[in-house]
């Protein structure tokens, strides 16, 4: 966590790749998000913060198509859409992790990560049943790529373990691995460090920064640990009760009086 945001900026943040324009989402009478607009630039780490129930997870769900907003548009890579759908989002290179671990409990770590690459596999059912030709080639080829992710996240020793048997911190890491296996251009992380001890948090921060630096992956992350957020993110969006109350660099957000009042508390 010693990396400062000034260091991050040296990676060269590029053009806007994701533009959300006045997104409104309601569940019946409850307004989860109202008129939210913000953008994400290529290669940056963009944090979304806000108190519980502010609409942070809903925001991610809108970005990758789990929820369909009633209003607004989403432009990803310049392609403007009313809403995303999950398959399209995945095919476009958006991957994510979940707040509550959403791994496939009955499968091994390796199979979980391999499943992240399902869109790269083209073999037909019959080819897979015979396990010959393209099916076999794809399995081996994708296995190689998956092993790179396994090396990157340092989880070689648990490759064959069923994920249900792993401790929480490692499960979070496997979930990140599954998302990375898809070679995303945009990675959505929903509280990747929640419930971790200091050491695990430091590891996770290191991985997030490494992903961003080595692969140039753009990252949107939700996190409650302010130390982490202020340290690793380039820009921060602040939500409260479904409204955007702040947007800018960590320093700007930290100085914003509305944000201080609403979220960090006046005493800070």
């Amino acid at each position, binding site marked *: 966590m010693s990396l400062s945001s000034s260091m991050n900026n040296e990676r060269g943040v590029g053009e806007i790749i994701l533009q959300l324009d006045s997104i409104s989402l309601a569940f019946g009478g409850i307004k989860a998000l109202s008129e939210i607009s913000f953008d994400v630039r290529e290669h940056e780490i963009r944090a979304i913060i806000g108190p519980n129930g502010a609409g942070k997870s809903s925001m991610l769900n809108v970005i990758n198509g789990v929820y369909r907003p009633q209003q607004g548009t989403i432009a990803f890579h310049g392609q403007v859409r009313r809403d995303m759908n999950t398959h399209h989002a995945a095919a476009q290179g958006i991957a994510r992790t979940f707040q509550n671990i959403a791994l496939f409990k009955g499968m091994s770590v390796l*199979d979980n990560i391999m499943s992240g690459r399902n869109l790269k596999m083209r073999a037909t*059912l019959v080819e897979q049943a015979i396990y010959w030709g393209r099916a076999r080639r794809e399995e081996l080829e994708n296995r190689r790529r998956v092993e790179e992710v396994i090396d990157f996240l340092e989880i070689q020793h648990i490759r064959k373990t069923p994920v249900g048997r792993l401790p929480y911190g490692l499960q979070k890491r496997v979930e990140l691995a599954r998302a990375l296996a898809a070679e995303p251009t945009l990675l959505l992380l929903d509280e990747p460090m929640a419930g971790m001890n200091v050491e695990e948090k430091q590891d996770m921060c290191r991985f997030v920064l490494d992903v961003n630096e080595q692969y140039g992956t753009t990252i949107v992350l939700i996190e409650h640990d302010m130390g982490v957020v202020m340290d690793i993110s380039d820009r921060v969006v602040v939500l409260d009760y479904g409204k955007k109350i702040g947007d800018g660099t960590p320093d700007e957000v930290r100085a914003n009086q509305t944000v201080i009042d609403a979220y960090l508390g006046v005493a800070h």
Partner: protein
Amino acid sequence: MLYREAGQFKTTYAADQQIFPIRQDRIGVVVLLVVAFLVIPVVANQYWFSAILVPTLIFALAALGLNILTGYAGQLSLGSAAFMAVGAFAAYNFVLRVPGMPLLLAFVLAGCCAALVGIVFGLPSLRIKGFYLAVATLAAQFFVVWALVKFPWFSNYSSSGVITAQKMEILGISFDTPLMKYLLVVSLVALLALAAKNMVRSSIGRAWMAVRDMDVAAEVIGIRILRTKLMAFAVSSFYCGVAGALYAYAYLGTVEPEAFTLDLSFRILFMVIIGGAASILGSFLGAAFITLLPILLSVLVHAMNELLQDLVHASLPASITSNMEFVVFGALIIFFLIVEPHGLARLWQIGKEKLRLWPFPH
């Protein structure tokens, strides 16, 4: 002989991804195949072929089909017997109505017909899950049996509704003796089991398990939920359809709707539960358990009765002996479920893990 993979290093991903990565397992499978194809045909008698081996293998195939749907893809179904019925009647009609239809092709097409029916009855799975889906598949069970009785075209306007299956002949070779029937069934079952194993270790298998374990996450990584579920219904029904055709041709010798009742669907579900969900081996173990145990019990009860006869010159009344079989059978099912709710396959796996360490405790 020790069951241990020590010293067996994998230097390629291909070697690591083979079906049986441990050498001892590979030897075991070869031995099993040699026994199934060379030893059993020589040593077994007619009774073993037609009353024990053939039905067990056919039920194992049906259980394998249901296991793909329920164990791997997580969709509960009570319609297996219906899909078997579709397979049996489709095979009969293909052989009957298409001149020169090769039998194996008829079986494959029968499986495809069952797959289509499976897809139709799998459509509700997009909206409903678990027990509710099971009830929806129950509709398949009742509808198919009803339709086969209602429309006499399916049974070629036979007055009794019970029709004799045609003689089995492939490439001029007649499969009418118990031995030949056994060889046909064991070959098909072995091939389809291999195909099933290949599917569950490929991307479609991972997609099935992903949908089973966490459907939202599966959707987010780009798996199309409905397509994956319908694929599971199709493949599962294909297996059940082929099993149904074999059941009619190689076991019963007749094609009749009454052979494919809800009772059979439940038996196949029990095979999956007792054998072990999401396990190819489990389907075989479950089928063996459910088919062989009643036979074994009946032999035991008979022997006991004869012993009583010799000792005290009295025997148990038939009503008690026959019910005793059911009681013991039920008790054993409960016992096994308590000992290992994940089925016999898990017991086998635990045994293997223990063997790896034996004789050391850990």
